[in-house]
């Protein structure tokens, strides 16, 4: 039936129609995650409104403050973008392994070690080599240690059967303890009395701000990493193999795909991105490695990645949205007298509702490409 109907369309439809048809198909396919994602966010906000009403505050005031604080002015936009920058990279640390079917939640550890490695790598270079070279070496060192750390989690998963979620979380605690040990020990700048830190980078060796915008270059690096990851996952044979392996490991092995190498490779790349986030925190914000870089970016990255359905491109708007929510959180505290936990409640509600909405995929006929094929 379908075939003959299609054939009929082919005959009667002009060249314009036949060109529109694949477009309609693509739109239908692409519209599903956008529509479900957006309605998930709206539904989450609605549930959150009930919570706000329950504590006796006005959701309208709250949402207008969220707009003002997150995106309502040029200052607020820059505020949101600054907060989004580290989340782009830490979200990739979750998204890439997730496409292979691995849930990695220990990006915080790779970030901490990346920061320390970057600071340590900078020490011999400051003053003796040009800033660009020092920054490249710092980034390489941070990515290497982050890659080793999370890549080892992937190795344990594939070759030793250790649960990667637990392993990565526990290794994050080890990494943070190791960072504290180094920063308070051999790498400590003796002048950092009450806040043990590594030697502060001279301004010339720091990553500066984007021209005309009060946001550091980490944002551009993060966006670039997301785009590269998208291309890698969606358009290359490696990405294809990785997705096959994530869909069904056994089938991938039967096909002769190098599943072990794919897992270690992609987890290492993911850890490298988290390590790079640590390097950017040191080189663009803190100026030295210290306990302040462990600020929960690794954990917020998990939220971003899940909200983005582990799609590297979707991470960009979601990270900016969460950056905006965090930026607005301060204004909500100050103007409405609500505790900081309000924003955590909102993030939690969004997370749960969006996960719930995952179950809606494929349930609406309107998003079925075949439907559009027939109608066109």
């Amino acid at each position: 039936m379908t075939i003959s109907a299609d054939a009929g369309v082919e005959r009667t439809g002009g060249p314009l129609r036949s060109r529109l048809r694949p477009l309609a198909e693509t739109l239908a396919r692409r519209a599903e995650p956008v529509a479900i994602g957006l309605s998930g966010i709206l539904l989450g906000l609605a549930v959150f409104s009930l919570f706000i009403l329950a504590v006796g505050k006005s959701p309208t005031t709250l949402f207008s403050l969220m707009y003002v604080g997150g995106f309502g002015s040029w200052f607020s936009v820059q505020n949101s973008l600054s907060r989004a920058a580290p989340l782009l990279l830490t979200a990739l640390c979750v998204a890439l392994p997730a496409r292979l079917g691995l849930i990695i939640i220990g990006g915080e550890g790779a970030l901490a070690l990346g920061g320390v490695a970057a600071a340590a790598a900078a020490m011999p270079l400051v003053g003796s080599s040009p800033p660009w070279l020092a920054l490249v070496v710092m980034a390489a060192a941070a990515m290497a240690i982050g890659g080793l750390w999370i890549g080892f989690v992937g190795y344990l998963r594939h070759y030793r059967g250790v649960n990667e979620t637990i392993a990565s979380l526990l290794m994050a605690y080890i990494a943070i303890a190791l960072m504290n040990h180094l920063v308070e020990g051999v790498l400590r700048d003796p002048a950092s009395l009450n806040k043990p830190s590594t030697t502060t980078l001279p301004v010339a060796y720091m990553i500066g701000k984007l021209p005309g915008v009060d946001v550091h270059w980490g944002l551009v690096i993060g966006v670039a990493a997301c785009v590269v990851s998208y291309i890698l996952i969606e358009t290359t044979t490696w990405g294809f193999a990785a997705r096959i392996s994530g869909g069904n490991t056994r089938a991938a092995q039967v096909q002769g795909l190098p599943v072990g190498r794919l897992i270690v490779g992609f987890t290492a790349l993911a850890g490298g991105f988290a390590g790079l986030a640590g390097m950017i925190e040191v080189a663009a914000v803190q100026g030295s490695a210290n306990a302040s870089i462990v600020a929960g970016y690794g954990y917020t990255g998990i939220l971003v990645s899940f909200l983005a359905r582990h799609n590297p491109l979707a991470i960009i708007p979601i990270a900016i949205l969460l950056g905006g929510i965090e930026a607005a959180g301060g204004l909500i505290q100050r103007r409405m007298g609500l505790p900081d936990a309000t924003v955590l409640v909102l993030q939690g509600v969004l997370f749960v509702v969006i996960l719930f909405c995952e179950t809606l995929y494929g349930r609406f006929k309107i998003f079925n490409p075949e439907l559009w094929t027939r109608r066109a």
Partner: protein
Amino acid sequence: MTHDLTFNRRRFLQTAAAGVLAGVAPGQAFAADALKIGFIYVGPKDDYGYNQAHAEGAAVVKALPGVSVVEEENVPETVDVQKTMESMINLDGATLLFPTSFGYFDPHVLTVAAKYPKIQFRHCGGLWKAGKDPINVGSYFGYIFQGQYLNGVTAGYATKSKKIGFVAAKPIPQVLQNINSFLLGARLVDPTITCQVIFTGEWSLAVKEAEATNALIDQGADVITCHVDSPKVVVQTAAGRGAFVCGYHVNQSPLAPGKYLTGAEWAWGKVYTDFAKKAQAGQPLGNFVRGGLKDGFVKMSPLGPAVSAEARNKFDATLAEMSKGQFSVFKGPLKDNKGAEVIAAGKSFPEDAIELESLSYLVEGVHGSTS
């Protein structure tokens, strides 16, 4: 062309923002006559500790005429605090900011202050350096180790095992001052008393604080104090095990009724009131403000029911002596716990001695290691 586009977009956003601001917050527009002060805390405002001490100070200032206060809690020591400060300046119209966590100072307060030279920043605990740091920045702190010395006096009378315990966050000068003072106060009563210290490694890590408290009590310590951001867990755990407790940061006596001896408290209300009144009068705020018991920067919790009459007398006499100022908790001859002499006989350091800011040892009688 591209330039025009960006410009237009920015202009559009600015206009939109102005409209929204006017619509959302009527009456919150910048009031020129009122002094708006922003307080920023690294943890929750009701932590029975460091942040609560500052929030109680903020509450005192809030009650002053012509002053309004904006507060934000749980702000990490990252770009977040920079943006929070800027947000308070740009969206709330704050002109005096108190970012209270130690880790905010370098680079965050210094960075934002350089960008907003007309706004005043006063930071708790940092070492402001003339000529190097922006002139609109200053730092303030209190000699709270004086309070830990008095804690030690009550502990010296209360302990039966002659072992007292200290749960500490990190081996940094401000913490080491407190540990040493606690033991030196106790040794004023009995020179055979020893103090076991356990470092948790983090400012706020409830599980390890509870473990450390239990470990100290298992080793025989019967009076416990601490220096972590929130002493709540330590106080409750110790009192639950039957040990006496000396408080820190704020009055924790409601958490350990009957077991609470006294506590070293901040009196930030006085400090913030001084700053606010100076700002209202247009006087300079000062860039390096320090004070102790004498200046009313720190105070002691009321003595608990477990404090004996003898201990009360000694406590009152010592407090009176210290309140005159220039009382040396640290005086020679003094050895560290490795046997090396750190202060020669005849030499003494009163509370404002600059040497104490870089103190790096544990005194003889403290069991524990700084590394």
